[in-house]
Every structure is written in structure tokens, then in C-alpha cells.
């Protein structure tokens, strides 16, 4: 029996090579359009926030004795979808939605001020300076919520030593990137840009103070402050500047962003302290992110539970006055 072969496929039906090669773009475009139809607030959940080229790169780490034990880690999803990063908007979901535009390569951190080694460090050089460690820390936000995050980085002191600060350097100032082209929502919040934070030299040199490049074993997602940020676990979260481009060694206490905005509410020190309330709300308790609503609440610990290591930095100081 003769089986009739169908006629050749007309050339008009053949998908062009370029269209064939771009089919994924077409599909993701359609997905994005669908996401728009669902409402803009859902886009961030559908478009994977960690899909940027550098974010998500695996980082080799060694374990650290300074890592916090006995806490349940907050999920990666919550850490990457519930953020305060006001350059990308003031809603907790905004950074995951809008930080995709941030270019984290090439990236440099320039060192200025009272230092022998005035130099610009490339991010890839910083990543290799000393072995990266995994450090689990509690993070306590001034808004009375908290997380437990496995950061990746090394003690800031390792970096500072290599900068060789002069004896006259008493404080370190950290400046974040402020580029309205990449951070389109900067204007929606009336903070003093660029975001500025600062530490006293002994705080900056404390081994717990972490120069941070990643979390959960991978490079930082943009919304968490890529490619390099600070983590100071015994202070409220806003002290830990994100997406740092400049580190200055200075003689006087530097101005800091939230302190400029509301000096009565956000002090320079901003150590986690259940006995010093925010003028408008209590700091005695916190809500652990990711827990069910009936078991979120827990008592806030002095210095966020790191008092054994850091309390001696503040002996003789009135922490109610120097809040």
C-alpha cells in the first residue's frame, strides 16, 4: 500500500531561525504581559527576583565560630521578597520588583579620607581578599520585625587593615550607590541621597561586623544590597548600608541618612535595645518574619542577643542618651 506523504510544508509556515532562537524571549514576554494583566504587584512574584546574572552565583564558604546557632533560618523567599531598600521604593515588595535594573558589574568601592591606602577596589578583587565565611545572624529591623539570615562575607576589619587607616581616623562612613537611572523610585522617599551610614572605628573593627557579599551560599540578590553591603548584627537593620560604592575614614562622626531625616527617632548608634523605645512605638518585642501570625511575637534581646561580644564597646556610655 502506498502511504501518501503529505505535501512539503510551505515555506510560509516555516518558523524563521531568529524567531525560533528567540522563542524563550517570546514566552517570557507573554508571561510578563500576563503578569501585567494580573496586576503590577504580582509581577515581582512571577518574575524570579534572583534571576540576575551575578546574583545567585555560588560562593565558596568556610564555617565560622562567629555564626549564630540555635535559630531557624528565615526562608530565601522571605529574605528576597520582604525588603527595605528605599532607593527602589518604600513598599516591602518594591525592591524585589524594581531592583532588577541595578547593574552590579562592573562595580568598584573607593576608599577615601584618613587612610594610607587610598585606592579603588574592584568587586571581584574584594571577593577574593580573604576566604568567605558563612555567618548566620539575627537581623532586627527598627520597625520591630526580625529575620535570621545566613550571610556570606568576612569581617570588615580584614578589609580595614588592608586600607591602613591613619591614627586620626575615628569613624568610618559608608556611602551607597545613588543613581536615579537604575533606582527610579529614589524620589518617592524624601531621604538625603546618597544613603549614608557610619560606625565608630572600634565598632567597624569588631569581628562581628561583616562585609557581606552573599546569602544562602550565593551572591547577594540585588534587592538585598548587591553586590556588597555591610551587616552589623547588634544594630537596627538600617545601619547596615547596602550596595556600597564608597568607604571614607573620617575624624568626626559622619552624618547618617535616617538620623538626618528624624534625629529624635533614629540615633547614630541605633543599637538594638528593648529598653529604649522608638518615640512612636515600642522596641520591647519583635515579629519574626515567616512564622504563623499567632507565634510571630518574641521578646527583643539587648544588642539583638550579641551583648556578650559587643557590650564592652559601650561601657560607661548612657545608651538612653546615645540611642
Amino acid at each position, binding site marked *: 500500500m502506498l502511504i501518501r506523504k503529505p505535501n512539503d510544508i510551505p515555506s510560509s509556515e516555516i518558523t524563521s531561525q531568529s524567531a525560533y532562537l528567540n522563542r524563550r524571549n517570546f514566552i517570557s514576554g507573554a508571561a510578563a504581559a500576563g503578569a501585567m494583566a494580573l496586576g503590577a504587584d504580582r509581577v515581582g512574584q512571577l518574575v524570579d527576583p534572583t534571576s540576575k546574572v551575578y546574583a545567585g552565583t555560588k560562593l565558596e564558604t568556610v564555617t565560622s565560630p562567629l555564626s549564630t546557632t540555635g535559630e531557624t533560618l528565615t526562608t530565601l523567599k*522571605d529574605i528576597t*521578597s*520582604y525588603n527595605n531598600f528605599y532607593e527602589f521604593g*518604600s*513598599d*516591602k515588595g518594591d525592591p524585589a520588583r524594581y531592583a532588577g535594573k541595578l547593574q552590579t558589574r562592573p562595580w568598584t568601592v573607593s576608599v577615601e579620607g584618613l587612610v594610607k591606602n587610598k585606592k579603588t577596589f574592584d568587586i571581584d578583587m574584594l571577593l577574593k581578599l580573604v576566604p568567605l565565611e558563612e555567618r548566620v545572624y539575627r537581623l532586627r529591623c527598627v*520597625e520591630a*520585625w526580625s529575620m535570621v539570615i545566613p550571610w556570606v562575607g568576612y569581617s570588615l576589619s580584614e578589609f580595614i587593615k588592608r586600607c591602613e587607616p591613619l591614627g586620626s581616623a575615628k569613624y568610618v562612613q559608608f556611602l551607597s550607590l545613588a543613581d536615579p537611572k537604575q533606582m527610579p523610585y529614589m524620589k*518617592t*522617599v*524624601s*531621604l538625603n541621597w546618597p544613603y549614608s551610614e557610619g560606625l565608630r572605628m572600634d565598632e567597624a573593627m569588631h569581628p562581628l561586623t561583616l562585609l557581606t557579599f552573599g546569602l544562602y551560599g550565593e551572591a547577594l540578590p540585588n534587592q538585598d544590597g548587591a553586590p556588597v553591603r555591610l551587616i552589623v548584627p547588634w544594630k537596627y537593620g538600617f545601619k547596615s548600608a547596602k550596595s556600597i560604592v564608597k568607604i571614607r575614614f573620617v575624624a568626626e562622626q559622619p552624618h547618617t541618612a535616617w538620623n538626618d*531625616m*528624624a534625629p529624635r*527617632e533614629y540615633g547614630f548608634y541605633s543599637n538594638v535595645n528593648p529598653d529604649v*523605645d522608638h518615640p*512612636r*512605638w*515600642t522596641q520591647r*518585642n519583635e*515579629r519574626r*518574619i*515567616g*512564622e*504563623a*501570625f*499567632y507565634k*510571630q*511575637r518574641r521578646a527583643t534581646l539587648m544588642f539583638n542577643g550579641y551583648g556578650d561580644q559587643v557590650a564592652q564597646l559601650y561601657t560607661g556610655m548612657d545608651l538612653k542618651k546615645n540611642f
Partner: protein
Amino acid sequence: MSNGKIVTLKVLVWLACLYPLASLVYRAVFTSLGPDPTHTITFSTGLATIRLLVISLAITPLRRLSPRLSWLIRFRRLLGLFAFFYVSLHLLTYVGLYSYFDVKAIGADILKRRYVTAGMAAWFLLLPLALTSTKWSIRKLGKNWQKLHRLVYVAATLGVIHYWWLVKSGVRTPVTITVMLGVVLLARPLTTWIKNRPRPTTDNVTTSA
């Protein structure tokens, strides 16, 4: 507006008013209330309250626009009572989830934290309004009923102030609802003024010429 249409609309308004609660329950049971569920519950019940208050306050100025809109009045009590329902849920989340029913801590909060003071005051102002929403009370109170129910202006304003005192300085999320409340409150004196405005007569025109 026929009675049939009113009944259909009432069903729709009930469904719309129940939506914020239904959404919370659905998310709590089947999906998730997000990373900070306590905050999600507090925020959505608070927002539902202030939105319902603004909508209920829009009814009077809308009715003044045209006599054909007079049927809107039949929805005002429903909206007001739903606002009270949500503000009570909101208060309950504060008492239960934030304060763990610690009466002493709540008392201290009311004295010390102005956003709690404002929020509590608003709830106490809305309470007598909810209690006197029956036909019997309206008849019994007569002219005083209207006077009493003017407290809703104060309560709604306190609600918006409460919202501003809660957010971090520099955050402007309460702007939209503040403007909306401002519009529905200012619409009252404005419509009164337009109604009572002396109309220019031809006499006036000739004298000025």
C-alpha cells in the same frame, strides 16, 4: 430605583464589604498571609476601615449633586457598620497579636504612643455610632441623632492621623487616602455654599455697568 435593583445592589455591596475579610481568611487557610502575617492582618483591616469611612462620607455630597441619587442613602448605614466591624477586628489584632492581652501594656501604650491614642479614640467615637444605628435609636434621638453622628468626621480624621503617625518619617503612603478624605469632607461646605449662593440677577448686572 426599583426595590429589585436595590436588593441586587445590596447583595453586591455586602460582597464587596466582606471581600477584605474573605481574602484574609482565604490566604490564611489556603495560601499565605505573606512574610509578616500580623502586619498583613493589621494593615488590611485598618485600610478597609478608613476606606469604608471615606466611601460612607461620600454619600451625602453625591446625593446633593442630583435628586436622582437619593437612593444612595440606603447604603450608608451598611457601610458605616462594616467600617465599625473592621475597626473592631483591627483593634482586636492590636490587643491580641501585638499586646498578648496585656492590659497594663495596652494602658501604657494609650498614654505614651500617640498613634495608639488616636486609634483608640477613633474606636471609642465610632462605638456609640454603631450602637445607635438602629431605626429605633434614630427615632428616639431625633435631631440629636444627627448631631451625635457628626462624630464620624472626627473619627475618620483621627484614623488618617493615626496612619501618618505609624509610618516611618519620609514615607508618603497615606497621601492618597488623606486627599480622598479631604475631598469628601470639603465637599460638604462647598455644596452648601453653592446651593445658598445668591444668584446674580439682571438688576445686579445693570447696576454694575
